[in-house]
């Protein structure tokens, strides 16, 4: 009985997760079904594998962004961070460092960028939108300074290629890494103080201070985590493309936020739906894949994508209501 109510409870406390997330899940399933009917190839194992592999780069970052947004923050710098950290990994590899060292350095760099964001937001108290936007511009600039716009290529080290291209049985390595990341963040968000405090800050910052939550500490950590994840995504992308592109990750900031919000996490903060975020990221990949598979007139792509984002959010409102009722 009490175990049962516990079940109910956790459902409740994750209401937004299931509720807010449910709409997008429905939308996703409908879309997949529709595409499956439209083109037999769509549901082929190969294609589904590709879709997941295409989704991971946005997904991983979006997991971090879910925390940021649940905290009533925003992070526009993720795309540049992805490119910057990918570059670092590639550069170190090319200088003959061992792959793991290079990756570690790259992840550290991402975390550092996140910390800078966090400090400027939490300590200097500049609006997160501006801080991360400036960081986005500056980081992209530093990339240009360093690469002069020319990618770093020739990353032929098989160990390094594993990260982005390897398989474990049938599961692509990047997908595996993404799943592990998801579970880790899921645990952090719903099972630990850290997650509680993150949501509390998003729900009522002043109260969070009054109950003794160290807001700055949490904020900086959340941005750092997001920077770390952007770097992880950067490493995977670099390993996947065997090159670090100076322009990598351009426009990711918006894709990421779209995935999070489509997933049912509100920009007003206080609630988060990590499952929804994952669904949101996959949905974006599915749509684009579908457009290619159906060879939709290339000029119509943006129109369709925009429309689907809107529909997904509506579906989510609707799905949410369903639950609430």
């Amino acid at each position: 009985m009490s175990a049962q109510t516990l079940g109910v409870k956790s459902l409740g406390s994750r209401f937004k997760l299931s509720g807010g997330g449910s709409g997008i899940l429905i939308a996703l399933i409908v879309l997949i079904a529709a595409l499956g009917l439209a083109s037999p190839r769509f549901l082929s194992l190969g294609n589904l594998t590709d879709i997941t592999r295409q989704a991971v780069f946005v997904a991983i970052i979006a997991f971090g962004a879910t925390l940021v947004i649940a905290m009533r923050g925003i992070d526009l710098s993720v795309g540049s961070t992805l490119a910057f950290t990918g570059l670092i990994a590639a550069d170190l590899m090319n200088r003959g460092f061992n792959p793991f060292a290079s990756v570690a350095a790259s992840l550290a760099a991402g975390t550092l960028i996140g910390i800078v964001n966090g400090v400027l937001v939490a300590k200097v108290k500049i609006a997160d939108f501006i801080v991360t936007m400036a960081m986005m511009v500056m980081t992209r600039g530093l990339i240009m300074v360093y690469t002069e716009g020319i990618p770093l290529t020739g990353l032929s080290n098989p160990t390094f290629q594993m990260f982005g291209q390897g398989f474990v049985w049938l599961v692509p390595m990047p997908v595996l890494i993404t799943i592990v990341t998801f579970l880790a963040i899921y645990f952090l968000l719903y099972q630990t103080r850290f997650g509680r405090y993150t949501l509390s800050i998003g729900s009522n910052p002043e109260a969070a201070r009054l109950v003794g939550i160290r807001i700055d500490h949490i904020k900086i950590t959340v941005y750092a985590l997001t920077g770390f994840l952007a770097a992880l995504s950067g490493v995977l992308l670099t390993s996947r493309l065997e090159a670090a592109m100076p322009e990598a990750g351009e426009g990711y900031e918006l894709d990421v936020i779209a995935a999070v919000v489509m997933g049912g996490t509100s920009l007003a903060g206080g609630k988060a739906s990590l499952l929804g975020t994952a669904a949101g990221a996959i949905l974006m990949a599915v749509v684009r894949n579908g457009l290619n598979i159906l060879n939709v007139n290339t000029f119509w792509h943006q129109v369709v994508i925009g429309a689907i984002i809107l529909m997904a959010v509506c579906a989510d409102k609707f799905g949410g209501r369903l639950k609430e009722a």
Partner: protein
Amino acid sequence: ADYGAAFPGILLDKVIPATGKEAKPQAKAHRPLKVGFLPTAMDTYYQRVLAGVKEEIDRLGGPSTIQLLVQAPKSQSATDDQVRTMEAWINEHVDAIAVALYNEGALEPLIRRATEAGIPVFLFNSPVADDPYYVSDIGYDQSDGGRAQAQWIVDHYKDKGEVKIAILEGLPGPHTAQRMKGFNEIISKYPNLKIVAKQPAGWVRAQGLSVTENMLTAHPDIDILVALYDEMALGGLQALKARKLNGKIAIVGYENMKEANDAIKVGDFAATVDTGAKEEGRNIVRAVEQFVMKGEGVPKKIFVAPKTYDASNIGTFDPSDYIYVAKSTK
């Protein structure tokens, strides 16, 4: 083999040896052949390439012979849009893929994967093609474009005393780098030709305008405005017009866009460089024909020479080169 026949105007000195990792030529019997066409974006330039592709396909019998799949990313640098499209096409087992690389080393794993799947990959308008898998790299040498611009300046200004040059670059990247490389190679030989300003204008007209205005403030006395793309040059022209300097400061553009071409006729532009966009399109299809229909090998690089147009020869340019001319009307 004499490639000259199959590819008129090909620069054989640009051809490099094959690596052996490319897909092998094969005469495919089934029709239509599915060919993917994947530029880095859809704009004036690629539309012109596409026109060439379509006309050449018409020559081969139209859609019943080659079914053309056209997909373009939402922006120049959206490499991961290209990744998606490539993967979709590979899963679809198209017969050939023609892709424009935005950057050096882009898509290498995808090109490899396509090649391993037996799909030949042709590159076009790719500033730096250095992966071992593509069958053929079609287009022109971007640094030749820069050289052509510089050469025109040299021909007209080498003994005009000190000449001040301002340059509108594109976004930092291989296109800018390659074109500047060629340009500098030649200009640097002439100490009287001075580059006094070099600023980025993001390939677009609006920035071409404002950056030119700003450069003119710093250097009111420039003699030549060089732009690495006509869009930026046309923005620059707006700035000159506003100052009644059009025709006084020589604009040297790049790409021979229609407007640039007209501007030369009225004397607003001094010169522009035509990089053979439509011919590039034709060569793509010719290469596909050779490689996938006839099963014959093709050169690793199918480059043509950029052609400089100015008042002296603008009349010789055939305007139909801008548009797709359906076969029937030919």
